[in-house]
């Protein structure tokens, strides 16, 4: 029992090693300490939860009832206000998973593994929402629930990458082995992100190109752009709040397990 990996202490000493981690490393180490993160996370929580509720509700009411209908899509365009934020968050969440993967593989941060385990299911849910709302939008507009074009297929691949990650990180009796395998999957799977982003430019697809880009002016009226941005902000805060809460719970659960194991050994 004493050899169990769960007994591995989640504490600052865990990360200290003989090698000099460098400046980025030491900055990371400051916040990679679960105890310090716990305090930070608790203080941060209201600043995530309240904007999430207020902005999401405001954005959805604005999108559903106050914004104008599209000239050709009619009211179906309102699905955009939930579909586009879900799509952005799906990619953003996977990027976060990949960053956690690098932190885990290179710096061996336990907190990065805990975070990856909590981001995975939330990201998978958001990707599912993106696919579902896209399907509900595609049926009346395009005339098809689903087509195998490059954009839709690459997002479906992202969904399976998420599912694989969720399963892999919990697949081993030794959590550190699962974390290592999942981190490799997260980092390798990140190649799908530029494919999703540029699929609508590289290949001809049924999915339309992006309306909002970093380089060009949005091809959207401001009366539709504002509710979209409010919804995106609100959903992003919600995503962060949910991951934050889950991560805090995960740290407490780990601590409880350690105490129980220590008690069993004493």
């Amino acid at each position, binding site marked *: 029992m004493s050899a169990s990996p769960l007994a591995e202490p989640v504490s600052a000493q865990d990360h200290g090693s003989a090698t000099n981690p460098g400046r980025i490393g030491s900055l990371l180490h400051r916040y990679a300490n679960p105890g310090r993160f716990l305090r930070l996370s608790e203080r941060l929580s209201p600043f995530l939860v309240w904007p999430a509720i207020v902005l999401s509700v405001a954005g959805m009411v604005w999108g559903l009832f106050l914004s104008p209908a599209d*000239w050709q899509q009619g009211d179906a365009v309102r699905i955009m206000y939930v579909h586009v934020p879900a799509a952005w968050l799906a990619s953003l969440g996977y990027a976060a998973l990949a960053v956690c993967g690098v932190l885990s593989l290179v710096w061996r941060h336990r907190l990065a593994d805990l975070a990856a385990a909590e981001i995975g299911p939330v990201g998978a849910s958001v990707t599912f929402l993106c696919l579902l709302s896209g399907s509900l939008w595609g049926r009346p507009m395009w005339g098809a629930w689903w087509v195998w074009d490059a954009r839709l297929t690459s997002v479906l691949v992202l969904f399976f990458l998420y599912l694989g990650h969720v399963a892999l990180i919990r697949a081993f009796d030794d959590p550190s082995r699962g974390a290592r395998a999942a981190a490799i999957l997260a980092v390798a799977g990140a190649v799908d992100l530029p*494919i999703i982003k540029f699929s609508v430019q590289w*290949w001809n697809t049924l999915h339309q*190109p992006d309306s909002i880009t970093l380089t060009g*002016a949005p091809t959207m009226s401001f009366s539709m752009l504002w509710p979209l941005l409010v919804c995106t902000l609100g959903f992003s805060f919600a995503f962060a709040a949910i991951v934050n809460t889950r991560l805090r719970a995960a740290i407490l659960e780990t601590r409880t397990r350690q105490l129980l194991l220590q008690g069993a050994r004493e």
Partner: protein
Amino acid sequence: MTRKTRRLWLVGGCMLGFGTATILTLQAFSTDIVFFMAPSQILAHPPAPNRTIRLGGMVVAGSLKETHEAGKPPSVSFLVTDGQDAIPVRFTGVLPDLFREGQSVVALGEMRPGGAFIASEVLAKHDETYMPKEVAEALRKSGRWDPRFGKPPSASSWDDMTVAPSRGS
């Protein structure tokens, strides 16, 4: 070189290698990844007869003809163009809501020896422009845009055109 630095290089190197492999694979299969072929592509490289392909392009203004025969679903014929060539398409069935002249569409079907495309399914491909009805109406009234001839002008010019359509530029 510390262990951490070595691991950082290792992860970076693997990402680079894996990324390159992916790019090369996608390059190799890029003709299979495209969802549809444009009329000029189809005419330049005619597909084998009876091979199901997807044809994509814009419905030519004024080319849409509907034929109603008693006891049969309505049948339509229209021209699809990519600006260079046009292919006549015939389709029997229900068209999507967004189907109209000037709209981009993707039709699934096969080329017939006469040069016509017989579609079994027609999907509408809308563009990335979103605007309220009033804006579309104003653009049309000001004479700056006719939806039957393609995409609307860029969104940054909508205000000029709708607020002061007579100002000119």
